[in-house]
């Protein structure tokens, strides 16, 4: 590409001609000390809390602590180039990030600067990073489902648009996988997705972005990265920036999903800042307002009223626990803020149950309002949670080796198959209609005769069967989003048909599954 020098020159010339020389009036201070991502500034007497300030090298800071004789500033960027005695000027503006369609599909840092090498983000629209959550009058109850494509979640702890559902668990239990699957599952739903990576290894983030790209999810997803090597202020700000970008869609009547991965690291970054700023430490050395830091963030997720367009922002905050300790400070805080939690356990994970969700203590407080009617039916997932919980109890009892009567054995068999059915691979979100069909089949005992090891194969073939040979049945469920008695009848007979095909073609089918 060759540049036309005269064209560029003419544009610049116009700029110079139109330039209006004004006296630059600014309020200034002087850096007293700087280090670890914060600076103490003398002067700036008129600065307001949360206001942006600018250092001579163009780095931006936020007025964090207003003290009697100095201002504590958190530095959003390279603090190594800032020296003692540097002039700091206030800008009179709040921190804001670019928003809108231009940020979709991009990878940005906590300030909205692109870091994916795909050129500048061209948009004039910006939103302040910190903004008030919608009030009571501006909201309506959550009622539309947000399908995560994960059977265990959509069936037992359904998530609605506008809900906050916490994903909590030890390291390496598949927390991020649930967030990513939920994003991938939004492919044709029109929901814009935001993935905020806080304090994570850059290599992990690169893997996540690659996975999203491979599954076509980067077309509607923005990734906000403040990695482990980013200064603490950026890690602290990143979730708020991501929320600002997602909120834009909510206030425009659209739907958005945001995954905060993870808020424990953000809390740690905030603790670091607060301690450096000499704010008094509280429990686990976290500052007293760490609860507020998370509550004001998560309160911004909402389902707006119809007058405001009915947009929604759903959030999936992730919290990492240590040794399953949910009663630590940050986990209890976030559990109390959110509308439910998905609790992941290492022993389930290593026992091969993935997602490793502990059904007994995972809840969704919005619940049934966020499910389609078909899923809610007692023949499908209606009583599934309780049934599985009683199965777990029975299973523990059965391990004592006592002789079991046939009825108990049957309940156990049903439970084993249900557990098997709820296992699901990564990056394989399932359409909600398929989920309904599979869970219905298992719940009605059609899988009781299928060996446990074959449940996954049976499910896969059954869903293909319905799709190919009974499209009208699938369509009936998909259109009404309900299971009428008549549909259930024809579904039963379809399953019987399939069982016959499956049994007669068992040997070749088995070979096929192996591929």
């Amino acid at each position: 590409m060759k540049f036309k020098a005269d064209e560029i020159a003419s544009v610049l010339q116009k700029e110079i001609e139109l330039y209006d020389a004004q006296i630059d009036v600014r309020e200034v201070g002087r850096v007293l000390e700087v280090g670890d991502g914060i600076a103490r500034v003398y002067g700036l007497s008129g600065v307001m809390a949360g206001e942006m300030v600018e250092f001579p090298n163009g780095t931006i800071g936020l007025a964090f602590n207003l003290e009697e004789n100095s201002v504590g500033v958190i530095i959003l960027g390279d603090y190594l180039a800032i020296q003692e005695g540097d002039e700091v000027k206030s800008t009179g503006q709040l921190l804001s990030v670019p928003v809108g369609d231009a940020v979709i599909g991009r990878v940005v840092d906590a300030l909205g600067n692109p870091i994916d090498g795909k050129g500048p983000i061209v948009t004039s629209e910006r939103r302040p990073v910190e903004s008030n959550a919608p009030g009571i009058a501006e909201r309506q109850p959550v009622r539309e489902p947000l399908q995560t494509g994960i059977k265990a979640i959509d069936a037992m702890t359904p998530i609605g648009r506008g809900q906050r559902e916490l994903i909590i668990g030890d390291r390496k239990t598949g927390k991020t996988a649930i967030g990513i699957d939920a994003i991938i599952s939004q492919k044709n739903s029109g929901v814009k997705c935001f993935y905020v990576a806080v304090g994570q290894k850059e290599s992990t983030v690169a893997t996540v972005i690659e996975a999203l790209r491979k599954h076509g999810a980067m077309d509607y997803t923005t990734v906000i990265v403040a990695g482990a090597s980013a200064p603490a202020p950026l890690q602290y700000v990143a979730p708020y920036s991501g929320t600002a970008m997602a909120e834009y869609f909510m206030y425009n009547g659209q739907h958005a999903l945001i995954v905060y991965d993870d808020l424990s690291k953000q809390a740690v970054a905030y603790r670091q800042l607060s301690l450096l700023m000499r704010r008094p430490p509280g429990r686990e050395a976290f500052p007293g307002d760490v609860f507020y830091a998370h509550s004001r963030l998560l309160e911004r997720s909402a389902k707006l009223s119809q007058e405001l367009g009915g947009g929604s922002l759903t959030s999936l905050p992730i919290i990492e626990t240590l040794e399953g300790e949910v009663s630590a400070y940050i986990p209890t805080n976030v559990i109390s803020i959110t509308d439910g939690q998905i609790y992941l356990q290492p022993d389930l994970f290593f026992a091969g149950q993935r997602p490793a969700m502990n059904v007994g203590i995972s809840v969704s407080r919005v619940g049934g309002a966020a499910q389609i009617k078909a899923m809610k039916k007692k023949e499908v997932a209606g009583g599934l949670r309780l049934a599985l919980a009683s199965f777990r109890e029975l299973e523990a009892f059965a391990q004592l080796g006592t002789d079991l009567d046939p009825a108990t054995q049957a309940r156990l068999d049903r439970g084993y198959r249900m557990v098997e059915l709820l296992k699901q691979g990564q990056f394989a979100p399932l359409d909600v209609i398929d989920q309904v069909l599979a869970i219905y089949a298992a719940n009605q005992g059609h899988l009781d005769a299928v060996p446990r090891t074959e449940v996954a194969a049976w499910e896969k073939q059954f869903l293909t069967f319905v799709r190919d040979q009974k499209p009208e049945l699938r369509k009936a469920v998909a259109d009404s989003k309900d299971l009428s008695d008549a549909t259930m009848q024809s579904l039963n007979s379809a399953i019987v048909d399939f069982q016959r095909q499956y049994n007669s073609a068992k040997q070749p089918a088995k070979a096929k599954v192996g591929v």
Partner: protein
Amino acid sequence: MSSEKLTTPRLFKKLPTYDSSEIRAAKVYATAIVSAAEQAGKTEQVLAEFKSLIEDVLDPLPKLDAILSSALIAQDVKIQLLDKALRGKASPLLLNSLKVIAQHDRLGMLRVVAVAMVVAVERLRNRVHVLASSAVPLRPESEQRIIAEIRLRMGCEPVLEKQVNPDLIGGVVLRVGDRVFDGSVATQFKRIREQMIQRSVHEIQSRRNRFSTSEGN
């Protein structure tokens, strides 16, 4: 609030440390000394002596500074030392003030007290400290204009401190308290540069073909 600030640049530069509780204490001493001096009608004299004590005695003799600040040396020794050194040279009011400061073990913060005194006196006289930086030394008539302008706008008497900074290229930068009125050519250049980048990026991005030809692609 800005008039409360201790921004007298020349004295400030020599402040060894910055401690907000020290500044708070210094303000109390400064107010007391200034109002005592005011009653005796010797404010300017005491202030000049105090400044000279710091600039002509403490600055060239860092060891004396260390002795006065040291907690290892007893109060009465310090008081005797001050007495011997300054009796007859400093005004009794200043000497007494220093002794009071010594009694409270605060001799380490004499510089901070001096800065606080300057501010207190300036406030009392309705004066404001202005740092004027320019690329070339100011001509007397422009100096007069600046003073008149500030007097008119801020309603107080400016005390002009002049600074020559060739990096400004042209124009003048006035600093009053925490506010900076920047009319320098250097800042104008910086601003026009930022503006050009900001506006042109959008135009170049949206209309690439206008700025480039397809040949060589």
